[in-house]
């Protein structure tokens, strides 16, 4: 069995910061972001890195193809991932929020509140605690458009600076919860590669302090 870890990193902005962090602890030097290669082996700590689509990080880790991974809390909540959340990495911070046109009420008495979102599970779980009945409209992108064209009353999305909302004449109506990037681990790998995973967690913790 390979002693070192296999690490799934998301492609895109979150992954770029993650790679920077790994490089800062002296790992992941073999990753060449300008290449189109998807898998990199690094002699430091006998580690293999896989660059995957952000929404697939959890699948790779849950199924044990990767031992650990870096992914946003938003994906963990939406996928109801059965993994360990070992560390908050302190970047990729944003808010899950309900947004809509200024003056839009979130309580519609007997009427159904229509919500467009990329995160149906998170939305459902959040509104379960409220008395307001809702209808969820699943979209895959450009969610801000939905209230403007009358597809929904409000949206549930992650908001970083709020500039996209502002550009579309929308405002945050209610903050739901804070989101950030997490270091996650497969539950079985955690047991078989405990020392290696702990070593990585400790290094990342030192970097943050």
């Amino acid at each position, binding site marked *: *069995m390979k002693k070192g870890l296999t690490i799934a990193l998301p492609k895109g902005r979150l992954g770029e910061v993650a790679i920077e962090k790994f490089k800062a602890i002296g790992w992941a030097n073999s990753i060449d972001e300008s290449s189109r290669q998807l898998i990199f082996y690094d002699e430091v700590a006998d580690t293999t890195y896989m660059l995957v689509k952000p929404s697939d990080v959890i699948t790779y880790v*849950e199924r044990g193809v990767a031992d650990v991974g870096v992914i946003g809390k938003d994906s963990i909540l939406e996928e109801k991932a059965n993994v360990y*959340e070992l*560390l908050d990495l302190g970047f990729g911070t944003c808010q899950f929020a309900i947004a809509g046109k200024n003056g839009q009420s979130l309580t519609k008495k007997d009427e159904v509140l229509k919500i467009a979102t990329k995160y149906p599970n998170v939305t459902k779980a959040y509104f379960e605690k409220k008395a307001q009945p809702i209808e969820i409209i699943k979209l895959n992108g450009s969610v801000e458009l939905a209230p403007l064209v009358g597809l929904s009353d409000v949206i549930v999305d992650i908001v970083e600076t709020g500039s996209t909302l502002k550009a579309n004449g929308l405002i945050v109506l209610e903050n739901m919860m804070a989101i950030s990037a997490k270091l996650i681990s497969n*539950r079985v790998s955690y047991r078989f590669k405990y020392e290696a995973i702990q070593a990585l967690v400790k290094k990342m913790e030192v970097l943050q302090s």
Partner: protein
Amino acid sequence: MTFLTLEEELIYFETKQKIHEQLEAEVKKKGYMLIEPSFFQDYDTFTTMNPRLKKETMVKMISQEGQVLVLRPDVTTAIMKQVLSKWDQHELKLYYLSTRFKMNSLNQIEEQKQFGIEYLGNESKEAVEEVLLQGYQVFENLKIRYVMELSDSRWINTLIKAMTSDLDLQKTMKNWIDYKDRYALEKWLDQQPSSVEKDILSRIFDLQGTMNDIIRKLSDLKLSEPLMKIIDEMKSIESRIHQEGYLNKTFVDLSMMSAFDYYEGIMFKGYLQSSMQPVLRGGRYDPLTEQLGKRCPAIGFTLTLKDLVKEVFQS
């Protein structure tokens, strides 16, 4: 499993059959008797007993009379319901080869063939050790690589109850611990007044390894009597494991959780590298018998056969 050739498929079934026979022969030798539990359980009773088990993973059915039933998500509960009313306080050793049902994330019903043993009516340390070591024996006999994880459910329960009496919050805290979510737990702990329990919880995820490692990590704290008792019992079990030569395959993890809330006392999970979930789960579960009407000492384990057979077949 998918097979490229018929020959491969036949070898797989032969392997499976051999493993089933071996498991049965082993426990029969020790006086365990076969039982076949019922398929259906009352939905409300089951979910009240296991509040943290995800409801969407249960296969529900409605009887002619309108009663909501669940296709047994757990064999132990089904067996206990069947035997407790007739149980006469004597020692009883049972084993089963049964199926449990689960709705997966694609809304398909998964059938999981389980093998397990239940040991009733004996509250001694020896009974705990017999069942636990039988669990180790499964892996040892098959000569496969494994890790056994050990804890005691009373450890987390005692700590959490000392922090809050709010049941919802207790459930949330258990979920944080189950996901080893140090960040969420610490954020909450930061707002709590100082106490020994808070100190222990703030290092709960570091309380792993051998009992000596754990005791060293707790050496600066004055543990309450119930907590000390748990540590002493765990130490004694560990030394028995050491005697058998299994210590290097053992990992005590005091932050370990079970999806089932009915454990009270030792809990253990066996992991194989090729499987995504623990293949063996067990522990002492006297509260389950109490909830079903008659409290009695009970300990057992259950084994997911598919994962075990796959590991043996592949190796």
